[in-house]
C-alpha cells in the first residue's frame, strides 16, 4: 500500500519515486519524504521538477516495420465496428461478494515480473490473468467478447485488427489505459532489456505492426491472414503500463519484486517472501459493469500460501486451512479424498467434463536409425497397451487420445482410430522390418544383432507408474523400453535438442485451432530448439501446412486441419497417449459454484481469475461467509450433512468406437 501511495503523488509519469530514491539523490529522497505532507523545513533549497534527476531509462526505438507490412497512416473509413453483447451469460446471479479464498502454490515465485528470466513459474498463473487483453474469449461460444476494448474491426488485408478501447478502463493506480500502452507493449516486448528472447522474437515475427490512431483507438497487424476469431486468439495482446516501467540494463533486477499496475479485478496487496502472497479485490474495478464480468470475481481476498509438498498441502485442505484442492489425479480422487470430511459432507467433490484441448503422446524421433522405418513405428504403436494402463493405474478415468491433438471443436478429426494393442499386428510389422526372431531375454533381435530396444525420455516421476506398466506389456511384443527419467527442464532440453529416441510428453495446447507448422513442418525438422520433436519432414505435408496457416476461411481451415491430422496418423511418428477430458476439484461446502459448475472449456472449476485454459471462464464461484460459520460449527459439534459428489457430463463426448 505504501508503495502505491508514493506512486500516486508523483506528477512525473516516468520518474517513479522508488527509482529516484534508489538513485541516491538527496533532492529526490526529500521529495518522497515530503510527499503528502509538508516540505521539511530543515532543507530549504529551491526545488524545481526539471532538476530532479528522474530516470527515464533507455529510449525505445519506434516500431520498425518490415517491407510489405504496415498499417495505414489514417484510420480507414470503411471499418465495420463490431462488438458482442448477445452471447449467453454464464455467471450465476446468486453469487455474493466477500470472503477469502485460501489457496496454495508449491514454491515461492522467483519474481513478480510478467516477462524476463524466471517469470514462467506457477505464480505467473496469478499475475497474468489479471492483465486483461483488448478482448476475451467467451468460454461457451468461443467467440470474442469485450474486455479492455468495446469494439473491434478487421482490416482489409485479412491480418489486422482495429480496437476501440473502453474509456473507463484503468490501471490499478488509476491511470487510464490508452492506445499508447499497446504501442509501448510492442516496443517493450521487442527490447533487449527485458531479457526474454522468446517474446522479442514473437513480437517481431508474429506481430508485424501496431499503430495508435487516437487515445482510445489502435490497430495491430499479424504475420499472416486468418479467420476473425482465430486472429484475435493468435495476435491480440495486452497493454504494458507505460507510466510504470523504466527500462534500463538492470530492469530485470530492479523490477523483480515491483508490483506492476494491472487491469484485472485483483491486485497484490501483501508479499511475505517465502511465506505467502495476498491479493485483494479492487473495490471500484472498471470492469464490474461489463456484461460478461458481472457476478464474477467474488472473493474479497485471495491468500496464496507456499506449501512445498503437495501431500502436506492436501493435509492442510483436509483440516480446512485451504478452501479447495484439485483432484484431477486418480489417486487423489479415489483414495486420498475419502474419509470423514467427505463422508460428513463438509467437503464437496466435483467432477466436470469439459472440452479441454489435449496433445500428449510418444513422439518418435524419425531420425533415429530404427525409428526411421515406418514398420517399426507402426509395430511400436501396436505394442503399447494404453488401455491396460487406463484400466489399472489410471483407474479408468483417463481416455485414450486418438489423434495428435484434439479439443478444438470442429477442427477435431473423429474419424481417426488410434492404433490398438495388437500383438499379431505388431508381430507382422516388426517382421517386415527384419525383427522376426527373439533373443534369449525375449526381446526381438535383427540379423545384424540389433535389439529392438528404445529409450523413452520423460520428466515427470509421477508418470513412471504408467510407463512401468507399458514397459512390462511391451516385452510381450518383444520390445524393450528403457526409462530415461530426467528432471522436467532437463528432459525438455534433451527433446528440443533432438537427442531423444522416444519423447514422452504433452503440449499445453491452447487457442482456438490446432497448430501444425511448429510440430511437423520440414523447416523445423532435423535441427535443435524447435518443437518438431519427431523430426518429421514430409514434402506432401509442407504445402498443406502453409495453406492451413494462411487460409482465411473457416471451412477450408477445418478441412485442412483434419487432413493434416490424418497425415500425422498415417506417418505413425506420434503415438497418442492419454487425454484427461475433465477437471476435478474438492471444495469446502462454503465455496459455492453455479448450478452448471463450469463452462464448456473450463480447465478448472475453482479458479479465482478470468482465464481458464485461454477462455474467460473463471471467477464464477463465491464464498458464502455465513455458510462457512455454520459448517464450522457443525464440524465442531460433529453434525453431518449429506455427502456431495457431483459428476457433470454435459460436455462429455461419447468415446468413439
Amino acid at each position, binding site marked *: 500500500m505504501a508503495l502505491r501511495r508514493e506512486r500516486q503523488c508523483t506528477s512525473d509519469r516516468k520518474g517513479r519515486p522508488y527509482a529516484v530514491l534508489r538513485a541516491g539523490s538527496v533532492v529526490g529522497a526529500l521529495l518522497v519524504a515530503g510527499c503528502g505532507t509538508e516540505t521539511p523545513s530543515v532543507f530549504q533549497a529551491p526545488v524545481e521538477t526539471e532538476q530532479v534527476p528522474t530516470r527515464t531509462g533507455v529510449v525505445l526505438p519506434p516500431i520498425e516495420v518490415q517491407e510489405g507490412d504496415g498499417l495505414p497512416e489514417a484510420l480507414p473509413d470503411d471499418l465495420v465496428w463490431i462488438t458482442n453483447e448477445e452471447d449467453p451469460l454464464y455467471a450465476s446471479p446468486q453469487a455474493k461478494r466477500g470472503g477469502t479464498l485460501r489457496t496454495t502454490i508449491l514454491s515461492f515465485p522467483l519474481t513478480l515480473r510478467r516477462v524476463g528470466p524466471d517469470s514462467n513459474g506457477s505464480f505467473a498463473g496469478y499475475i497474468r490473468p489479471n492483465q486483461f487483453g483488448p478482448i476475451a474469449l467467451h468460454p461457451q461460444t468461443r467467440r470474442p467478447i469485450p474486455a479492455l476494448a468495446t469494439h473491434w474491426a478487421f482490416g482489409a488485408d485479412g491480418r489486422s485488427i482495429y480496437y476501440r478501447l473502453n474509456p473507463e478502463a484503468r490501471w490499478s493506480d488509476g491511470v487510464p489505459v490508452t492506445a499508447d500502452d499497446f504501442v509501448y507493449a510492442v516496443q517493450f516486448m521487442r527490447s533487449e532489456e527485458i531479457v526474454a528472447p522468446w517474446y522479442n522474437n514473437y513480437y517481431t515475427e508474429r506481430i508485424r505492426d501496431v499503430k495508435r490512431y487516437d487515445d482510445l483507438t489502435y490497430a495491430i497487424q499479424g504475420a499472416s491472414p486468418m479467420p476473425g476469431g482465430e486472429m484475435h486468439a493468435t495476435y491480440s495482446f495486452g497493454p504494458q503500463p507505460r507510466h510504470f516501467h523504466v527500462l534500463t540494463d538492470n530492469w530485470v533486477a530492479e523490477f523483480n519484486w515491483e508490483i506492476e499496475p494491472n487491469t484485472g479485478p485483483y491486485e497484490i496487496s501483501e508479499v511475505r517472501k517465502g511465506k505467502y502472497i495476498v491479493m485483494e479485490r479492487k473495490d471500484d474495478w472498471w470492469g464490474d459493469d461489463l456484461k460478461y464480468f458481472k457476478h464474477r470475481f467474488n472473493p474479497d481476498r485471495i491468500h496464496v500460501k507456499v506449501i512445498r509438498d503437495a501431500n502436506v498441502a492436501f493435509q492442510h485442505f483436509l483440516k480446512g486451512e485451504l478452501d479447495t484442492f484439485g483432484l484431477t489425479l486418480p*489417486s487423489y480422487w*479415489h483414495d486420498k479424498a475419502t474419509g470423514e470430511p467427505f463422508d460428513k459432507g463438509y467437503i464437496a467433490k466435483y467432477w466436470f467434463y469439459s472440452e479441454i484441448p489435449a496433445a500428449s503422446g510418444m513422439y518418435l524421433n524419425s531420425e533415429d536409425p530404427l525409428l526411421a522405418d515406418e514398420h517399426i513405428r507402426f509395430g511400436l504403436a501396436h505394442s503399447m497397451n494404453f488401455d491396460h494402463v487406463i484400466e489399472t493405474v489410471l483407474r479408468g478415468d483417463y481416455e485414450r487420445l486418438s489423434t495428435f491433438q484434439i479439443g478444438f471443436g470442429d477442427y477435431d478429426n473423429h474419424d481417426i482410430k488410434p492404433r490398438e494393442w495388437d500383438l499379431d499386428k505388431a*508381430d507382422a510389422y516388426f517382421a517386415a522390418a527384419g525383427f522376426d526372431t*527373439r533373443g*534369449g531375454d525375449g526381446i526381438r533381435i535383427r540379423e545384424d544383432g540389433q535389439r529392438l530396444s528404445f529409450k523413452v525420455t520423460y520428466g515427470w516421476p509421477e508418470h513412471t507408474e504408467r510407463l*512401468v506398466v507399458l514397459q512390462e506389456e511391451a*516385452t510381450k511384443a518383444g520390445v524393450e523400453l528403457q526409462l530415461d527419467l*530426467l528432471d522436467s*527442464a532437463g528432459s525438455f532440453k534433451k527433446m528440443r535438442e533432438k537427442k531423444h529416441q522416444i519423447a514422452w510428453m504433452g503440449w499445453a495446447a491452447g487457442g482456438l485451432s490446432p497448430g501444425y507448422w511448429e510440430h511437423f513442418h520440414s523447416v523445423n525438422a532435423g535441427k535443435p530448439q524447435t518443437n518438431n520433436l519427431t523430426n518429421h519432414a514430409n514434402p506432401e505435408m509442407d504445402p498443406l501446412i502453409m495453406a492451413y496457416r494462411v487460409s482465411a476461411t473457416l471451412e477450408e481451415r477445418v478441412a485442412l486441419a483434419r487432413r493434416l491430422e490424418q497425415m500425422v496418423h498415417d506417418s505413425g511418428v506420434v503415438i497418442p497417449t492419454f487425454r484427461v477430458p475433465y477437471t476435478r476439484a474438492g471444495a469446502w461446502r462454503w465455496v459455492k459454484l453455479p448450478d452448471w459448475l463450469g463452462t464448456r472449456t473450463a480447465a478448472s472449476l475453482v479458479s479465482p481469475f478470468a482465464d481458464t485454459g485461454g477462455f474467460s471462464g473463471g471467477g464464477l464461484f463465491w464464498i458464502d461467509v455465513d455458510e462457512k460459520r455454520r459448517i464450522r460449527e457443525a464440524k465442531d459439534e460433529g453434525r453431518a450433512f449429506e455427502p456431495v459428489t457431483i459428476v457433470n457430463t454435459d460436455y462429455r463426448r461419447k468415446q468413439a468406437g
Partner: protein
Amino acid sequence: MNVLASRLKGKFTLDPLTVKQFKRFRSIKRGFYSAVVLGVMIVMSFGAELLVNSRALVVSYQGELFFPTYGDIIPGRTFGLDYDYETDYRDLDGLLQERGGDDWVLMPVVPYDALENDLQPGVYPPYAPSLASGHYLGTDSTGRDVLARLIYGFRIAFAFSFLLLLCNYLIGIAVGCAMGFWGGLFDLIFQRVIEIWNLVPTLYVIMIVASIVVPTFWTLAAVMVLLGWTAMTWNMRTSTYKEKSREYVLAARALGASNPRMIGSHVIPNTISVIVTFIPFSIAGGITLLTALDYLGFGLPPPTPSWGELLSQGTSHLGSPWIVYSVVIAIGLVLVMVNYIGEAIREAFDPKKFTYYE
C-alpha cells in the same frame, strides 16, 4: 603335498592377537548375532532368484523337466500356451493343477519378481498384504510386490555400498598412508587438496549429474567414489604418522627395508584396527546415501527396485501403511544391525584391552 599343507597351515595360523579379538567379538552377543543374521541375509539375497521370483523353480511338462530360474526366457508355446512371450508360471501352475495329470510347477516362496505389475481387474493397487495372493507385505502403487522389491533392493543397496567401500578405502588408504609416511610438502599439498575437495557438496553434484544423464549403478558409484574417498585419508594419515615413529618401523628401516615393504608389512597391518572399525559405519553410510538419493529421485533409474523409491511411494501413499512400514522397519533393522556389528568390532579391536603401557 604334506610340505605344502603344513606350510599353508603355518601361513594360515591365526595370530594369537587376532584370535583374542575374534573371541572378544563373539562374546559381545548382540554384535555377533547381528553379524550372523546380516551375513545370512546377504548370502540369501545373492540367491534371491531362487526365493523371490515370478519364474518357476522347476516345471515338469510332458515328462520333461525345465529349470527356468536362470538363463533365457521360455516362451509360452513350449508349455502349450498360445503366446511367444515369457511364460506366466503362476498361470501355468493354476492351469496344470486344474487339468490334473502328471505335469506340475514348483514356484519359489514368493512367486513375484521385483519388476512385475500384478494388476487385478476391478481393484486398484496398492494391494494390502495377503497370504492368499502371495503378496506377504502387500504391493506398491503399481502392483509390484513389496517384499520382492525390498529383497532385490537390499541386494543392490548392499552391493553398491560394498563397492563404494572398496574403492573409497583403496584410494583413501593409499593416499592417507602416503601423506603420513612421507609427510612434508607432499602431506601439506594433499591436505589442502583434500580440504578443497571436501567442500564440493556431494548431494548437489549428484543431483546435477542426475539431471543431465540418467545415472546408472556404475556412474552413480563413480561419482560417489570421486567425492567420497577423502573421508578415510585423515584417519590413515594420523595412524601412519603414529606408527611411523614407533621403534619397529625404525628397526625395519635400519635393516634396510624398502618403503613399500615398511608400509605394506609394518604400517598398514598395525593400522588395520582403525580401518576395520570404520567398515560397518561406511557400509551403513553407503546404504543411507543411496536410499536418500533414490528417495529424492536422483538415484538409480526406474524401475530398479530400491528402498528409497519404496519410501517415497510410502510417504505419498500414507493410506496404504504397509509400504512405509515395511521399508522403514527394514531400513531400521539393517542399520541397527550394522551399527551393533560396528560397535562390537570397535570394542573387540580396542587396543587398550591388549596392550599394557608401562
